[in-house]
């Protein structure tokens, strides 16, 4: 890493301050609390000097200077707050307001508008103009993006975030002078990644989203900081929630406070695809199959029935006749609880989940060695990245963002090995295309096995391969990221390469929000939480299906998963199996169930999830639909119905009590620091068997990699877990990994219930895309 930057001394408004050489005056001021107003300046995007709001007086310069383009210099003397500057700012706001529609009462940005704030701070009370304002009608550019030209102040943030940040370049400026207008890439509409970054970054209400526009006002929402429920990257998000008939409804998602691993990034799914939560097909009542038909029932009846049936099977056929399939979308606490329930209550090791990455193989190589897993933050800061397989632009939007912006802002070197010419090659220093399925060969070669290339490359390109290997070997702090193409032996090869490079780290890419957590929490027939071997191995998911077919699997408990669709299983094979499904919707799997229990989703519960890198973060209850219960509660209730002492399942009632006075009410969106502190220090008694924190205590005790700072975690920060502290892992059949093949606009079964995703899909290709399920 570079040396600490040189500091220069300057004086701003009579205050002496130091700033790193080469930094911008506007940042130097901000760092010491001197506010210099700006519209067009946006950190990490190219400089514009267009809005002229940041004008300051720099001694010895004849004109006012823009603080956003002025680099600090030794001895610089600056004034930011005299009459001349106040007047300049006021005039600039006046000019903007001259043509601004001032429809704040109906504008989405009202209350969160930078122009409103500026007008308030720098004043422009009266309008000096009497001619009519220039008008243009509002345009819809895509299901997601709407544009209202009169509100646009031409700060070009949208253009830059789309181009420089997203590498999509869908927005541009058309015409000149007062006719200048932001324009979409396809005449009158957008064809783009629909990330909504442009809308999010717009300082005014010129760009608005189809999801949120005209729905509510910022001050009428509760703001809940949580983590995205879709892909495995774990974007932090703040959900805007408001009361609705059937509970609490999410109306907006963003990360405007730039906290967390993703700064202000969210992709289409994180930003808009929360709407599955309020889909009209949500199940709100338990269903019991009566006379061949799923019929609504009470919770009591359902739990009683499930408890009775599972007990029957366990006593008659033993636990080995019961299978459990867990979820990649439930919390760590729920996953942990589920495997504990399977093993302790059902007395079965037949537990599995939809596997999308070979974490057990990674654990096997790393166990007890030096920790070399990289965090999502590392991806943004690494000097070099090797990406093997996967297409992060489609499958890991945040990861792709981190990579792109690391390359753009820090000059990181990106090396790609892929069977497809994926979009990220545009950022790559080297791109090597290999035949489909040749990832193992590539990995083995890079790890040192020269013969591995024979099968995949003509001798002509051998030199390039050798050069690449040499270069990688000499790249300190390299981060190696690999998709599910790398499994089994290939994982060993890649980690081998990593351990031969000083400071190198690895990331294995899985597909869903808590795929990693499901794996870490032991949703495996042969592995306990933390990759410790189970005393006796149970059935894998395909084996459970086989046993069902042969009549040996008498009961199947499916939590937040849709194996029928995902693994294309024949529904007939479960004819003789008692199937219980916990889900939000009547999925393919739920339709064949004997009992369906309506489940809450990740936005409706509290707990922790772990992203594909191993960064654990909290999810917090944001929305609510009347009826469903959390998977956590349902698991406990079933155990209870089976006559199991739930105290042995959830260690509740523990924790010390400390009377620390009343915890102060939190401001909207902000963590209740006092409550967080109590909880983090285990001073809050877990009074209920449904308290996930009780299980989190146990996880932290028994899964050493999860001994991270609770205070940090509970305050909404990410904490990187340590895979090297895990047990010995396992070698699994690589065929057990089934990639989800989701793209930017699909998200397994969940995605099918998102109107936002569907509308984009329809807009894009009229025939419905084939979406896999989970």
């Amino acid at each position, binding site marked *: 890493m570079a040396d600490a930057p040189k500091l220069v001394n300057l004086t701003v408004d009579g205050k002496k301050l130091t700033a790193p050489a080469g930094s911008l005056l506007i940042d130097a001021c901000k760092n010491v609390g001197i506010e210099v107003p700006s519209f067009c300046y946006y950190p990490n995007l190219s*400089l*514009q*000097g*267009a*809005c*002229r*709001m940041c*004008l300051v007086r720099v001694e010895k310069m*004849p*004109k*006012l200077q823009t603080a956003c*383009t002025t680099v600090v210099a030794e001895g610089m003397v600056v004034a930011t707050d005299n009459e001349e500057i106040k*007047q*300049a700012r006021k*005039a*600039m706001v*006046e*000019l*903007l307001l*001259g*043509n601004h529609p001032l429809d704040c009462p109906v504008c989405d940005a009202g209350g969160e508008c930078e122009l409103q704030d500026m007008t308030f701070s720098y004043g422009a009370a009266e309008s*000096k*103009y*009497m*001619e009519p304002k*220039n008008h243009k009608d509002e345009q819809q550019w895509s299901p997601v993006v709407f544009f209202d030209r009169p509100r646009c*102040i*031409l700060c070009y943030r949208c253009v830059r975030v789309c181009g420089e940040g997203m590498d999509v370049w869908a927005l541009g*400026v058309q*015409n*000149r*002078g*007062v*006719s*200048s207008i932001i324009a979409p890439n396809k005449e009158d509409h957008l064809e783009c990644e629909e990330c909504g970054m442009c809308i999010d970054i717009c300082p005014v209400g010129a760009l608005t989203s189809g999801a949120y526009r005209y729905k509510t006002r910022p001050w009428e929402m509760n703001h809940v900081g949580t983590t995205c429920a879709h892909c495995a990257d774990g974007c932090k998000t703040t959900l805007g929630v408001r009361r609705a008939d059937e509970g609490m409804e999410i109306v907006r998602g963003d990360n405007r406070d730039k906290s967390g691993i993703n700064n202000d990034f969210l992709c289409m799914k994180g930003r808009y695809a929360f709407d599955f939560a309020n889909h009209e097909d949500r199940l709100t009542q338990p269903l019991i199959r009566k006379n061949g038909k799923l019929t609504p029932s009470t919770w009591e009846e359902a739990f009683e029935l499930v408890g009775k049936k599972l007990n029957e099977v366990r006593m008659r056929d033993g636990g080995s006749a019961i299978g459990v399939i867990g979820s990649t979308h439930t919390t760590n606490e729920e996953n942990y609880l589920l495997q504990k329930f399977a093993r302790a209550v059902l007395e079965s090791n037949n537990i599995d989940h939809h596997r999308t990455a070979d974490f057990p193989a990674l654990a096997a190589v790393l166990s007890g060695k030096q920790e070399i897993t990289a965090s999502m933050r590392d991806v943004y800061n690494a000097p070099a990245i090797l990406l093997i397989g996967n297409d992060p632009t489609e499958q890991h939007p945040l990861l792709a963002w981190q990579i792109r912006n690391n390359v753009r802002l820090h000059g990181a070197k990106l090396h790609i090995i892929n069977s497809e010419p994926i979009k990220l090659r545009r950022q790559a220093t080297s791109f090597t295309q290999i035949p489909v399925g040749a990832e193992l060969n590539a990995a083995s070669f890079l790890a040192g096995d020269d013969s591995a290339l024979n099968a995949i490359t003509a001798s002509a390109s051998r030199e390039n391969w050798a050069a690449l290997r040499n270069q990688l070997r000499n790249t300190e702090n390299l981060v190696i990221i690999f998709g599910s193409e790398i499994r089994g032996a290939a994982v060993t090869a890649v980690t081998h390469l990593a351990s031969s490079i000083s400071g190198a780290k690895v990331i294995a890419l899985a597909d869903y929000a808590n795929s990693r957590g499901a794996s870490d929490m032991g949703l495996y027939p042969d592995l306990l939480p933390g990759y410790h071997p189970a005393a006796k191995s149970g059935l894998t998911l395909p084996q459970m299906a086989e046993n069902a077919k042969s009549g040996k699997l008498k009961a199947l408990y499916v939590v937040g998963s849709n194996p029928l669709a995902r693994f294309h299983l024949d529904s007939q094979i479960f004819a003789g199996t008692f199937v219980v499904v916990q889900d939000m919707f009547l999925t393919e799997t739920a339709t064949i169930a004997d009992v369906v229990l309506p489940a809450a989703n990740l936005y409706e519960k509290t707990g922790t999830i772990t992203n594909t890198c191993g960064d654990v973060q909290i999810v917090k209850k944001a929305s609510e639909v009347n009826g469903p219960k959390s998977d956590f509660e349902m698991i406990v209730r079933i155990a209870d119905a089976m006559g199991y002492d739930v105290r042995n399942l959830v260690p509740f009632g523990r924790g010390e009590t400390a009377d620390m006075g009343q915890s102060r009410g939190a401001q909207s969106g902000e963590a209740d620091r006092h409550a967080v502190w109590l909880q983090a220090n285990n001073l809050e008694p877990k009074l209920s068997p449904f308290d996930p924190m009780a299980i989190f205590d146990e996880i932290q005790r028994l899964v050493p990699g999860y001994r991270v700072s609770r205070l940090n975690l509970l305050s909404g920060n990410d904490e990187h877990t340590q895979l090297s502290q895990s047990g010995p892992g396992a070698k699994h059949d690589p065929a057990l990994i089934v990639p989800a093949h989701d793209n930017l606009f699909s998200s397994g079964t969940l995605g099918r219930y998102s109107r936002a995703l569907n509308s984009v899909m329809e807009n894009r290709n009229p025939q419905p895309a084939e979406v896999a399920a989970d």
Partner: protein
Amino acid sequence: MADLVSHPDEVRVVSKRFGKGATNIDRYIELDGYKAVRKALTMEPDAIINEVKNSGLRGRGGAGFSTGLKWSFVPKQASKPKYILCNGDESEPGTCKDRLIFEHDPHAVIEGVMIAALAVGATKGYIYIRGEYRYLSEIMQKAIADVYAKGFAGKNIFGSGKDLDIYWHGGAGAYEVGEESALMESLEGKRGIPRIRPPFPAVVGLWGGPTVINNAETLASVPHILLGGAEWYANLGPPKNGGTRLFCLAGDLEKPGVYELPMGYNLKKMIYEVGGGIPNGRKLKAVVPGGSSTPILLPEEIDVAMDFDSVAKTGSMLGSGGVVVLDDTVCMVKFALRTIKFYQHESCGWCIPCREGTDWLKKTLIRFHNGAGLKKDIDNMYYLSENMLGRTFCPLGDAAAMPMMAFVKKFRKEFEDHLDGKPCPYEKASEEINRELAVL
């Protein structure tokens, strides 16, 4: 094609070959053409730069920056190729001199580019010609082809072992791309919008390489300096304002036209003697001394030497040599409107004060000229201009604000005469004009 004019006070340097068939390369060579560049090939680069520095040549594009000094800013060693960019986008209302050079003496521009290239170590020169000057592009194209045919451009120019390519490029019709950084954007094929400075083009210019940008007249003067010597050239004008300049006399004059006069020539004399005075026995009302962006001068202010420093003392600027003379029939509100209309139309729209400011000025002036002006509008227009001045991203905003402030300051009474629905007191046929202006 413009008619050529002449006057005994003229000192013909740049216009020496006008009307003499010098578009023909052989004729150009006969008239001492391509001698200066041959001389330059024998000189050390620094010696060329010093010669130009000592000649007192200042940029003819408007700002009047010392040409030699500008060249000296180009780093000797650069990791990227260096370029010369000739600015022939001439679009400032009142200015029409570069077109004569392109029309009559295109090789002088090419030779100037070559010498500049040798001075700073550039291997490529671009000649950017205003889009509307299509016929001049054709002349330039031919001239460049002839230069290549003679082996003066391309590889091993004049057998010197040095390489130098010359290209021309046509504009797409925006005044703003005459501004040097927007010019580079345009040449690179992007929207013609200025760049942030620093870095200055001499260090980071075209495609990131060090670039010298000079006006066509500036470059066309260079061969003469090399042949005649710095001292001779410097002595043609007053101190620090070397040489001659093409003055474009326009407006209410007996003999309008482009005249080459020594720097520092008296403006009053220029109007009454060179330009033949105001026709039809009318009186002088005002003079725009150097293109429409320069603040207007009153008759009592015109006894001034036309060099950069003297005109600056009057609060105006020598600018780009466009002298526009207005007689006492001209409505200053209408003239202000005409001027602002131009800048409003040509604002690239990048920055708030110029984009919005020129638009409001235009809207207000239209209403004003139509007789619906309010007293507070007069102050508002001044206030608006004052708040644009010095705060825009590039000098185009200033180019609108400066003359506007002068109009209000110097002709307030005339604005007041338009108030309260009074018809324009200066224009009898105001009906017709109003109709025309209303659709501006």
